[in-house]
C-alpha cells in the first residue's frame, strides 16, 4: 500500500509537543541565543519529567518489547521520533539538542552494545535526574574522514583496563555529559578510538567513558554561529582508564571484517533521517513565519497558476513549499524503512542531502524576502538562518552524504569512489 496518514499515536504526541515548542522553547529562544553557555534548566527538567511520565527513558528507541504486548502493530518508533524532532526543532533546534536522554551517545550504545551493556549504560536515563550522553568522533585534524582518527585505546593486561589517550572536538552536549552538576545525573561520553593504528578502520572501536573518570576533561566550549544553547565541547583524554567491558563491540581486531567501523556507520543510518527531520522543522518555522508576515501585508499566495502569471514572491513561496514537503516525505520514508527493518542507507542519506539543502535555502531566501525584517534580531528568523546551516554539516556534511548516495546508486565501494 501507499499511504500517508500519520499513525494515531503520532498525532496525539504532536499535539503535546506543539505546546512544549510554543510555551517552553520559543519564549526563551532569544534569551539563550544571546546568553551562550547558560543552561536552560527549566526546559531540561520539564522534558525529563515528561519523558519519565510517559515511560520514554531515552531518545534511542527501545528494541525490547514489553511483556503482555500481544497486539501486533506495525513498529513506528523511528516515525514517532522523526515527528517529535521535527516539532521540537520547529520550536528551537538548539534547545532540542539539550533534551536529556542520551542523544547520540545512547544511540551508539543501543546500536553497538551487548544487552548487558545496554542495561548498564542506558537505564540511567530513566532515573530521577536528567542525564546526558554524547558521541565523540571528530578530532582536530579529522572530521568527515572518520577513519583517520588518532585517539588510541591500549589494553593494560595488568589491570584489564583500557587506557585511552587523545583529543576530541565538536562534542554536542559533551559538557553536560562529563562535568558534574547537582541538577544532572551521571552521564557518559562514547569515545571512538583505535585499538590498532596499523589496522585502519578494522581497529576502530567505541568506548564508554563515564563522568568523573580521572584524566578526561572538557577544555573548551565553542562559540558558534547558531544553535548556541547547545554546548559544543572540546575534550582531552589523558591516560583515561576504563574497565574492560566498556568497549562496544569485539575487543580484538578481526581481519576479515571492518565491524567496528561499520557499526559506527550503522548508527548514522538510523540517525541521519532524524537530523534531517530537525532541518525540516527549522525550515517549516521559517516558511510559516514568512507566510504570516506576507499575509499581514496583504499578500496572498495564488495556487494553480502557470508560473508566467505568478509574482516573484508567489513563485518563491511555492518553490519553498515544494522543497519542504518533499524533504519531509523523504525523511518519513527513511524512518518508515528503519522501523520495518529494511536497509535504508540510501533513503537515509538522500533525506539528509535533501533536508540540508532545503533548510539552508529556505532560511536564506526567507531572510532576503523579508528585507530588513528578516535581518533584524527583533524576530527569530535570522536565528533560524544561523541555526539552519549546521544541518548541512553535522551527522555527515551534504558532500559526504552525496558520496554515500552516489556509491549506493552506482554500486561502488569506498575504494571505487573516493
Amino acid at each position, binding site marked *: 500500500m501507499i499511504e500517508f496518514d500519520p499513525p494515531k499515536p503520532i498525532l496525539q504526541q504532536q499535539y503535546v509537543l506543539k505546546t512544549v515548542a510554543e510555551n517552553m522553547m520559543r519564549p526563551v529562544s532569544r534569551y539563550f541565543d544571546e546568553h551562550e553557555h547558560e543552561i536552560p534548566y527549566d526546559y531540561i527538567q520539564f522534558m525529563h519529567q515528561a519523558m519519565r511520565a510517559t515511560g520514554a527513558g531515552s531518545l534511542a528507541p527501545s528494541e525490547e518489547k514489553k511483556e503482555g504486548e500481544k497486539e501486533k502493530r506495525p513498529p513506528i518508533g523511528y516515525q514517532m521520533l522523526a515527528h517529535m524532532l521535527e516539532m521540537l526543532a520547529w520550536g528551537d533546534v538548539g534547545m532540542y539538542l539539550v533534551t536529556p536522554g542520551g542523544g547520540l551517545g545512547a544511540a551508539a550504545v543501543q546500536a553497538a552494545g551487548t544487552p548487558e551493556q545496554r542495561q548498564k549504560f542506558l537505564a540511567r536515563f530513566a532515573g530521577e535526574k536528567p542525564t546526558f550522553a554524547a558521541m565523540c568522533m571528530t578530532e582536530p585534524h579529522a572530521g568527515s574522514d572518520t577513519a583517520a582518527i588518532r585517539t588510541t585505546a591500549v589494553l593494560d593486561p595488568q589491570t584489564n583496563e583500557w587506557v585511552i589517550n587523545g583529543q576530541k572536538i565538536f562534542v554536542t552536549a559533551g559538557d553536560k555529559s562529563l562535568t558534574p552538576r547537582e541538577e544532572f545525573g551521571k552521564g557518559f561520553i562514547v569515545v571512538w578510538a583505535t585499538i590498532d593504528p596499523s589496522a585502519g578502520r578494522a581497529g576502530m572501536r567505541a568506548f564508554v567513558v563515564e563522568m568523573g573518570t580521572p584524566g578526561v576533561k572538557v577544555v573548551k566550549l565553542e562559540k558558534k554561529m547558531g544553535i548556541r544553547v547547545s554546548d559544543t565541547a572540546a575534550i582531552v583524554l589523558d591516560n583515561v582508564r576504563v574497565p574492560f567491558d566498556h568497549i562496544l563491540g569485539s575487543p580484538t581486531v578481526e581481519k576479515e571484517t571492518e565491524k567496528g567501523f561499520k557499526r559506527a556507520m550503522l548508527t548514522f543510518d538510523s540517525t541521519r533521517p532524524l537530523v534531517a527531520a530537525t532541518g525540516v522543522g527549522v525550515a517549516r518555522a521559517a516558511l510559516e513565519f514568512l507566510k504570516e508576515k506576507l499575509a499581514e501585508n496583504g499578500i496572498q499566495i495564488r495556487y494553480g497558476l502557470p508560473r508566467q502569471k505568478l509574482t516573484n514572491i508567489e513563485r518563491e513561496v511555492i518553490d519553498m513549499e515544494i522543497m519542504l514537503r518533499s524533504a519531509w516525505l523523504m525523511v518519513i520514508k527513511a524512518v518508515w524503512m528503519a522501523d520495518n527493518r529494511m536497509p535504508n542507507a540510501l533513503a537515509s542519506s538522500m533525506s539528509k542531502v535533501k533536508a540540508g539543502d532545503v533548510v539552508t535555502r529556505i532560511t536564506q531566501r526567507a531572510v532576503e524576502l523579508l528585507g530588513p525584517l528578516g535581518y533584524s534580531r527583533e524576530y527569530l528568523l535570522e536565528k533560524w538562518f544561523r541555526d539552519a546551516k549546521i544541518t548541512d554539516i553535522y551527522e555527515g556534511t551534504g558532500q559526504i552524504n552525496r558520496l554515500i548516495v552516489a556509491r549506493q546508486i*552506482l554500486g561502488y565501494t569506498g575504494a571505487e569512489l573516493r
Partner: protein
Amino acid sequence: MYAFEPSEEQKMLIDAINRYAANDLRAAAREAEESGELPPKLIEKGWELGVLQASIPEAYGGFGERSAVTGVLAAEEMAWGDLAGAMAVFTPHLFALPILLTGSEAQKQEYLPAIVEGEWRPYTAAMIEPFFDFDPQALRTTAEERDGGYVLNGIKIWVPFAAQAPAMIVYASLNGQTQGFIVPAGTAGLEISSEREKLMGLNALPFYRLTLKDVFIPKTQRLGEEAGHAMEPILAAQWVAQAAMAVGVARAAFEYSRDYAKEREAFGVKIAQKQAIAFMLAEMATEIEAIRLLNWEAAWKMDTGKEDAWQQAYLAAVGAMDMVMMVTDRAVQILGGHGYIRDHPVELWMRNGRGFAMFTGLMMV
C-alpha cells in the same frame, strides 16, 4: 499509517507496463520520433494493458475503481518507456476521465462503455491556447449561452489526434469559468488544421490546431450538463499525471546516464568514479525521489478526498517541471558530445523535459 510499497496488484500492473515500456515503447521511440508516426499496433498493445479500463466501474463497462495512486504509478512506468508513446496510449483518458469525474449520469452512460469496451480510439481534449501566459483557468476561447445551448469561439493548439478523434472535450471560458464541452467530430464550425503542429519534441504525436467559429453545443453536451462542473478534480488529475510522467522521463535519463558513466573511461578511471559526475547523479536521484513522493502523496490525497489535494497536485506538477529539466539536462551533460548526438536518447528526453512546463492538459490519470 505510513506505507511506501505499492500493493501486490499495483506491482503486477507496474511489471506489465514495465515490460511493454522497455520492449515496445522504448524500442520504437527513436524511429517514431524521426518518422513522426507511432505504429497503431504499438498503441493498441499499450491500451490492452487496461490502465483506463481498470479506472472505470463495471456499471460503465470497465472493471475497477479509479485510483489516482495507481494512475501515477502507471504513468511513471509508461513515460519511462517513451513519453510520446505513453501520451498516445493515454489520450482517451483526456476524454473519459473528465466525464467519469464530473460528467452527468447520461454522459457517463453514453460515452464510457463505448470507449473502454472497444479498441483504442483517440477520444481527445482541447485545452492549450497559443499565448505565452496560457492559463487553464483563464481561457481566451469563449462559450456563450445562446438559443438553448452554447456557442464556442476561439483557437486551440496541440490537440492530440484531433483529426482522427470521434469526439473531444473542448475547454472554454463561460462567464469567466473554465468549463468543458463535448464536441463530436464533424460539428459545424469546428475546423481542424490540415497540417500537424510542429514542436521541439513529441514529434511522434500528431497534434492539430482547432479553430472554433460559432460552434453550437446543446446543453446536454456541456460537461455535467446545465449544472456544469468543478475544474479542481480535472486539473488535479492533469497535474499528478504530468508530475508522474516527468518522474518517468527523468528516471529514464538518470538510469541511462548512470550506466553510461559506469562504462565510459577518462583519465584511467570510469567517469562515474569522479565526484563531479557522481555528485550530479546523486542529486538527480535525490530530486527524482523527492518529486515522486510529493506526487504520491498528492494522488493519495485525491483518493482519500483531502481538501488540499488539488493544491498539492499543483505543487507536484510545478516541482516536476524543474526536476525533469535539471535531470534531463544533466543526462546530456554526462554523455558530453555523445549526448548531443541523436544516436542516444538523452537529447530526446531533454527536449521532452523542457516541454513539461507547458504540457498541462495533455495528460491525465
